[in-house]
């Protein structure tokens, strides 16, 4: 049966047919259709299955609040799951698929859940707290996989998203949210006063509900024409910008708002744009959302919001049904009966629980000859995959169904429980609400609290129906006033208050609340009165939650999952909390609402991510020689934000073989290491020495110019957090090396103390890490290699251990530090970054005869461990003090103060029984201990007593045996003792406590 009406449809262009695919079937609609309206036009009523019971579901709404018609649009990498069909604009070639059913939409095996539920209430409120509990093991292997398979939303695409997304910063005087009547009027008032205005509208068209009503005139013009004229006037204002298809997702501190713009599937630019807006004033003109009514089987496809039915008829020229029943407690919904009648559809009846329906709209309907049944309710809907009829009964004064039920044949039920202002944005950032008893709605209460700016002034206004003004005249006046107020607050002069607009509209009065439509028999308890369609929460569930003690609305929400679906309770919350209040015998305002949190509607991950994907997700830092490493077998390892070669693999060589080769080369002849990533802080000024005496545990002021000293940095807690070699460049200048990962932290640390504590000190700190390339040349042949490249005197007399010299090497300026982290004769040569590759090449060339071998971080680690040198992050964990690592020699006793000194006086840090650094030699020298393994006193004890842990562990190629460092309680006093280290799989490795310096304990190698 064709559901496209012969005429009407303000938004569609019948001259432009559009073809699309739905569940693999080719269908057509028109330009201007949404996927939802096109599907209705194509006669498709069934659009999905509910989560829990897999009941057939159709459209309920026509806008953002749609809970049922969630579909996956696009395919492959372009698939977008969980799209509301009501918000997807039809385009040529669109593909859409329904979700949450198996094997097919029409025949779904999950519906057995509903059959089971009808005999045993397994899916009632809190079912997941009550069922599937035993046996425990079944949860992992049976319950969860089955539940995951059968309940759920559309699958996320597995391929990389080919679209691009961007973030856009925008600063404006006034942000107006909502392009309906109120938004347009407020924007115009603020814009006319000279304010810079951004107006955003979530759909593709401006005018809001004015487009769907034909009985309202503003200043003598049809509502829709007034909207078009106002939009045009706004478009002509240079200080006003308008963005459609842009959702205001959230409102945050100090007038910060997030907007999500859908730029279209076919746009040449980004797919979506996330606006990060800072507005001086925000006007929320977000309108209102119609409430469903709670009645039995109110989820059968064909039961829809009255306003949605009207929208489909008038905006898109499609008929959700041929034979309508209207079920409403208010006059406004009679407009749907009028719209249907005018479109040539049959209106079977209007069912109204009120005793009287005498407003002008009701009279018009009556005049059409449509039967109006007052004091009546739909006791239940008949039909499975589509509405077939409604059973109508008389509502008694006691709120029950009296007398016999009348069967009224229909294929669509237009329901309305009144309207709820959209107060979400207002509430996101502190705006409070009040309960309006007369209109039975929560509305903004700026007198209680409003969102505020950094100046403490209220910065958010609500306008129109969102503010609780439900008539056109009142809403319009409120919006104009909001626009003027916003302008005034900005110091602008909006001029004399304009005369109120002339509005002609039918009187609608207020809705008479009916939170629960009585029914009969097994339906009387509300087990089929659906509140939250997507999560299958019924009136009975909420009532049960109240009975089981979940009295707080927040608890009841989580227990029943009411309002926790992707629509976040836009339709269900008010009915749910009214039923909760009723169950608790409490007034609605006492029960209150749940918290409104951003985003207003689901925000796509792509929008949030923006450009921070792929290579830009976490940009890496590269040393000046990065490309050479990459071209020469570098096996990369992340070190902070840097990438460093773990080792360089030659040919078929594995990691272990490469590392062994590198260590043996460096120890036997010569190795070279790219040490550019080490942090380099230049600390300069008359007080530089005094400052560094505070920053380091050891004395730096006594360091002579031209010399280096290894220094330790502690926190005020006394814990070691960075180390490195400090070189005194001049009386008033030092260069402090830091760890590769710690450079930025140390820089910030130094700045913090200089700026916030010792701001009397005359010191500058500059982070010169990236200004220099640094190359370590290591091994017995290192001196002859570098001597061949420079005229500088690099003899041990001229350049002794822990000295440095400036000069020229291979034609470029260098500073040569004679320092060693390997225990070998070693030089670290720094040169301006742009000379790094040149110097690297020159050293390699000069070292060819000595088989100079580039080595990576693993060889570096092994060589330092062979020497018992600590590594920050391996031997330290944020609770380690220098004394634990036998570094007492680097903690000054002469200095009156340094950062961490006071902390070290505390009893726990001065405790002689702390874990201290030792070496471990495994009984089986081939066995390498696992990193981080615990050492225990007695491996058979239960529970075992931990006496320490392995901090560094390697197989030493130099010594051809396993070596390890460990922190063991009283370690140095237990030399020679054998301890046990239980490892995975039940094995116990035994190791002897030894000196942590495994190689060249006298330091003869580095001092030649």
């Amino acid at each position: 049966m064709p559901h496209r009406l012969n005429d009407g449809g303000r938004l569609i262009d019948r001259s432009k047919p559009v073809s699309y695919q739905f569940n693999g079937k080719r269908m057509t609609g028109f330009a201007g259709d949404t996927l939802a309206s096109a599907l209705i036009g194509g006669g498709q009523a069934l659009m999905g299955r509910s989560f829990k019971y897999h009941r057939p579901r159709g459209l309920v709404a026509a806008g953002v609040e749609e809970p049922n018609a969630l579909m996956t649009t696009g395919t492959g990498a372009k698939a977008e799951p969980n799209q509301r069909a009501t918000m997807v604009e039809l385009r040529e070639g669109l593909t859409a698929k329904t979700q949450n059913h198996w094997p097919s939409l029409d025949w779904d095996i999950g519906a057995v859940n509903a059959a089971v539920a009808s005999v045993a209430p397994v899916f009632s409120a809190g079912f997941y707290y009550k069922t599937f509990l035993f046996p425990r093991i079944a949860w992992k292997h049976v319950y969860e996989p089955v539940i995951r398979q059968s309940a759920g939303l559309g699958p996320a695409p597995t391929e990389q998203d080919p679209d691009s997304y961007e973030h856009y910063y925008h600063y404006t005087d006034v942000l107006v949210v909502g392009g309906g009547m109120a938004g347009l009027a407020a924007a115009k008032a603020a814009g006319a006063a000279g304010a810079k205005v951004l107006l955003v509208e979530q759909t593709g068209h401006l005018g809001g509900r004015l487009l769907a009503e034909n009985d309202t005139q503003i200043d003598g013009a049809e509502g829709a024409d007034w909207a078009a004229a106002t939009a045009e006037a706004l478009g002509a204002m240079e200080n006003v910008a308008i963005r459609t298809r842009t959702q205001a997702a959230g409102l945050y501190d100090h007038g910060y708002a997030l907007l999500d713009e859908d730029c279209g599937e076919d746009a040449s630019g980004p797919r979506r744009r996330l606006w990060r807006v800072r507005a001086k004033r925000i006007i929320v003109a977000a309108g209102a959302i119609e409430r469903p009514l709670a009645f039995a089987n109110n989820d059968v496809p064909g039961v829809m919001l009255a306003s949605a039915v009207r929208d489909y008829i008038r905006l898109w020229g499609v008929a959700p049904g041929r034979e309508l029943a209207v079920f409403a407690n208010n006059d406004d919904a009679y407009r749907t009966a009028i719209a249907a009648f005018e479109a040539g559809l049959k209106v079977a009846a209007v069912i109204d629980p009120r005793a009287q329906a005498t407003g002008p709209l009701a009279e018009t309907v009556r005049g059409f000859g449509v039967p109006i049944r007052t004091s009546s309710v739909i006791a239940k809907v008949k039909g499975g995959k589509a509405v077939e009829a409604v059973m109508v009964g008389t509502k008694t004064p006691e709120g029950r169904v009296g007398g016999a039920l009348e069967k009224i044949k229909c294929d669509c039920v237009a329901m309305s429980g009144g309207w709820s202002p959209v107060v979400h944005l207002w509430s996101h950032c502190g705006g409070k609400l009040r309960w309006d008893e007369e209109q039975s709605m929560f509305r903004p209460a700026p007198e209680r609290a409003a969102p505020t700016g950094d100046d403490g002034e209220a910065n958010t206004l609500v306008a129109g129906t969102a503010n609780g003004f439900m008539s056109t005249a009142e809403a319009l006046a409120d919006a104009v006033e909001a626009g003027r107020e916003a302008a005034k607050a900005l110091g602008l002069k909006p001029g004399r208050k304009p005369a109120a607009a002339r509005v002609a509209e039918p009187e609608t009065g207020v809705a008479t609340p009916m939170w629960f439509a009585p029914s009969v028999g097994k339906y009387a308890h509300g087990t089929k009165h659906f509140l939250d369609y997507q999560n299958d929460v019924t009136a009975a569930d909420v009532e049960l939650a109240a009975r089981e003690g979940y009295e707080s609305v927040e608890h009841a929400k989580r227990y029943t999952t009411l309002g926790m679906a992707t629509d976040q309770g836009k339709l269900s919350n008010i009915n749910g909390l009214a039923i909760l209040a009723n169950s608790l015998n409490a007034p609605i305002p006492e029960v209150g609402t749940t918290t409104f949190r951003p985003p207003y509607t689901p925000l796509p991950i792509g929008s949030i991510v923006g450009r921070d994907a792929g290579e830009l997700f976490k940009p890496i830092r590269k040393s000046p020689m990065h490309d050479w490493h990459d071209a020469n077998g570098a096996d990369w390892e992340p070190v902070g934000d840097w990438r460093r070669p773990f080792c360089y693999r030659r040919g078929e060589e594995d990691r272990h073989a490469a590392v062994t080769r590198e260590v043996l080369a460096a120890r036997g002849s010569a190795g070279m290491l790219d040490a550019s990533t080490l942090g380099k802080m230049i600390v300069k000024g008359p007080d530089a020495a005094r400052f560094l005496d505070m920053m380091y545990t050891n004395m730096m002021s006594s360091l002579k110019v031209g010399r280096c000293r290894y220094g330790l940095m502690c926190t005020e807690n006394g814990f070691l957090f960075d180390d490195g070699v400090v070189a005194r460049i001049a009386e008033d200048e030092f260069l402090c090396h830091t760890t590769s990962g710690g450079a930025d932290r140390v820089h910030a640390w130094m700045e913090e103390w200089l700026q916030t504590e010792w701001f009397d000190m005359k010191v500058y700190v500059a982070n010169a890490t990236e200004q220099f390339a640094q190359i370590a040349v290591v091994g017995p042949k290192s001196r002859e290699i570098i001597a061949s490249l420079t005229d500088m005197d690099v003899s041990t007399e001229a350049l002794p251990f822990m000295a440095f010299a400036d000069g020229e090497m291979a034609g470029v300026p260098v500073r040569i530090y004679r320092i060693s982290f390997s225990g070998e004769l070693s030089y670290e040569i720094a040169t301006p970054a742009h000379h790094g590759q040149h110097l690297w090449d020159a050293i390699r060339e000069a070292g060819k005869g000595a088989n100079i071998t580039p080595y990576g971080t693993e060889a570096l680690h092994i060589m330092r461990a062979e020497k018992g040198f600590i590594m920050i992050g391996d031997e330290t964990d944020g609770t380690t003090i220098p004394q634990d690592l036998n570094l007492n020699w680097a903690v000054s006793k002469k200095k009156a103060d340094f950062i961490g000194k006071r902390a070290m006086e505390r009893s726990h840090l001065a405790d002689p029984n702390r874990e201290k650094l030792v070496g471990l030699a495994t009984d089986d020298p081939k066995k390498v201990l696992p990193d981080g393994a615990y050492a225990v006193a007695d491996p058979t004890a239960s529970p075992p007593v931990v006496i320490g842990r392995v901090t560094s562990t390697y197989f030493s190629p130099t010594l051809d045996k396993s070596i390890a460092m460990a922190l063991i309680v009283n370690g140095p006093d237990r030399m020679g003792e054998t301890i046990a280290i239980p490892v995975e799989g039940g094995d116990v490795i035994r190791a002897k406590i030894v000196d942590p310096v495994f190689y060249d304990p006298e330091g003869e190698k580095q001092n030649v």
Partner: protein
Amino acid sequence: MLQLTCPYCGVTGEETEFAPGGEAHIERHGPGSDDGDFEEYLFYRKNPRGLHFERWRHAYGCGKWFHVARDTVTLEVYGSYPADVLTPPKEIMAKAKKRGAA
């Protein structure tokens, strides 16, 4: 997301441009101080309802540390001032007082 003004470079920027540094005006207690003072210095922080003095760094700007007087309830910023100012300026205190926060 807060909006803060750096008193050094004068830039009013997004919170993400700044790095928070906890409570301001904490007196350092070094060697020789008693255990109670040192404990307080290291570990005890105020968590007031209302006026709060805090440290921020213009991390993605001029790099300077500064102080902010901010209301923890309304998030109103009463003012910001340099890190070497040891007591909150009078006009900031007056502003907070007017709001009933100080």
